[in-house]
């Protein structure tokens, strides 16, 4: 691969349960994701694709094997360093949005900055910029609960990019949307990718996966 590797995994395995009840959700996954790439992790429900994303996004710990982020072995990092890494370098987009319904759009978007302890004025400015990117700056003071599904997902994208991340993890980003609004959200994500943000999309949707530069296919916990 001619580009710099952002994520490298070696013999990555995840087992749930113990002894006879043990279930190997992921088996010795070796993969590389380059900086600026768009990659689809594709597989059926229960294939282990979400487990893989959780490991790559440092939300979960592998049973064995290792993950290198920018050359750093993440299994050697402390919880504090992992928290910091997710907060500074990662953006998350979820199928179910996960927004604080009673809070304003603006407050939802600036949550990662609030967690990192960014100054009040700076975080408001950055959140407004992120909302502008997704075309929802006029909804900043609306309550999140009053938005449509497509708008909610765009707010989530704004939240994912507000910290200017190196990589965005999107878990079935269009799963809860109709095809029309889904297309808008896809366009937003790929536009961000064109600007240099690495994109990792977890999906079972072949059409969406094809739009990514590369597909990683997971079948029964193995990379096929």
């Amino acid at each position: 691969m001619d580009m710099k590797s952002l994520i490298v995994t070696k013999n990555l395995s995840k087992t749930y349960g113990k002894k006879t009840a043990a279930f190997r959700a992921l088996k010795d996954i070796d993969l590389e994701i380059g900086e600026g790439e768009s990659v689809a992790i594709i597989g059926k429900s229960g294939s282990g694709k979400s487990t893989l994303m959780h490991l790559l996004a440092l939300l979960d710990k592998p049973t064995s094997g290792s993950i290198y982020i920018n050359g750093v072995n993440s299994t050697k990092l402390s919880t504090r360093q992992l928290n910091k890494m997710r907060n500074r370098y990662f953006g998350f987009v979820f199928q179910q949005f996960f927004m604080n319904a009673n809070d304003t759009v603006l407050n939802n978007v600036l949550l990662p900055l609030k967690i990192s302890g960014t100054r009040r004025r700076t975080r408001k400015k950055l959140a407004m910029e992120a909302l502008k990117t997704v075309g929802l700056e006029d909804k900043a003071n609306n309550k999140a609960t009053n938005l449509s599904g497509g708008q909610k997902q765009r707010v989530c994208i704004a939240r994912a990019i507000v910290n200017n991340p190196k990589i965005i993890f999107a878990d079935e980003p269009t799963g809860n949307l109709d095809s029309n609004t889904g297309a808008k959200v896809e366009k937003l994500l790929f536009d961000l990718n064109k600007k240099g943000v690495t994109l990792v999309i977890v999906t079972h949707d072949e059409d969406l996966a094809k739009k990514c530069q590369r597909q990683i296919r997971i079948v029964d916990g193995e990379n096929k």
Partner: protein
Amino acid sequence: MKFLDILKEANQNLLRNKGRTLLTILAIFIGSFVIIIANAIAAGVNKYVDDQINAIGGDGYIEFMTKSTYDTVSSYLSTASGEIQEYNPDKNSQTALAITNEQVEKLKQIPGIKTDTLMLLGGNAKVDYITGGKTDKKYLIASVGLTPSESLQFQRVAGKGNDPFSSEYQIEISLDYAKALGYDNPEDAIDQTVKLAVQDPFTKSFTEIEGRVTAVMANGLMASMSPVRLNLAYNDRIYDESTKYLPTDQKNAKYTGAVEYDYENYSAKEIKDALDQIGLAALTVEDEVGMFKTFLDVMVAVLDVFGGIALLAAAIGIINTLFMSVQERTREIGLDKALGMSSSKVFLSFSLEAIMLGFWGSAFGVILSIILGTIVDNILHASGAVLESFPTFHVVAFTPENIIPIVATVMMIAFLAGTLPARRAARKNPIDALRYE
């Protein structure tokens, strides 16, 4: 995440379910209120008693009785308070023992004792009524006091007061009695003659004995305990009258005494120890007040226990409220943690919620105690009410020293109660939390 942001978020979370938050605060409030008001009353009474004691003085004044009398009185008191004691023939004689001549002689030898101030009493005079003055009406007297020493400064509004050892019959009366006897201006009562009446138990006739008014006492704790105070001669005369049918040895027996000592060169403890050597139990003014204060402390302790039980129930309420809150916000916690919030910050957020519940509960307790205490105090001081003649006595006293420790303790209890739910929140795994439906 900055502390101020966490604090703000905790506050917002409390406001999210207002009804539930309010009920939890109410539970904390009830417990806090009981404790705060109990301590405020104790502080109010203590402050008043201290002021009165300081006004009396009584440096170098000591009262004494035989140890057996003292034991009889104190075991009577503790039995009356419900404590059952085994009978001890050495201590529990029902007849108080009189002070012997030998003891008196030894007492006079104790260094520091001012023998010329020594006063021995058979008992306080019992009087049926007081009369005389301008109206010639008769007024009931419940309790007669003494002016046993010039070192005791009873607050007086007119006159110089009794000479304890004068052979003349002298009396001090309270302002209320002076008015009742027709002396609207207390000065008018000075040097007037009043009569105290003792009833003969057989003939039912009254013997009235005259005395000269030397002072009018200010209304207050002392005046209400004994509205008239006699000098020794007057007291003995009336005591003799009421005990005239007793055998001579009983009539002349002395059960209590009072004396002054050189308090500049001898400590109260030295004198008490010396009296103890000759079989006499001694009490200073502070000791007598101390007994009253112990009683007050016990009352407050009982109320504190009730308040504490209410607070314990409230603490369980806090645990319950926050567990519900953790359950409801599982996804939010998951998102916060996925986006890099540390477990300790999650813990802090929920702990702050608990502490704020404690703060508001006790703060409302303080506010209501102050309002209610002030209203009740005003009602009691209104004209014609119980405390009208005690303008300096306030039933409740609020000082930072008696409020802040209670509020801090309640906040501490709330924090401890909050640690259970806060720990559960902090331990949530972000993936499981986000999957939670």
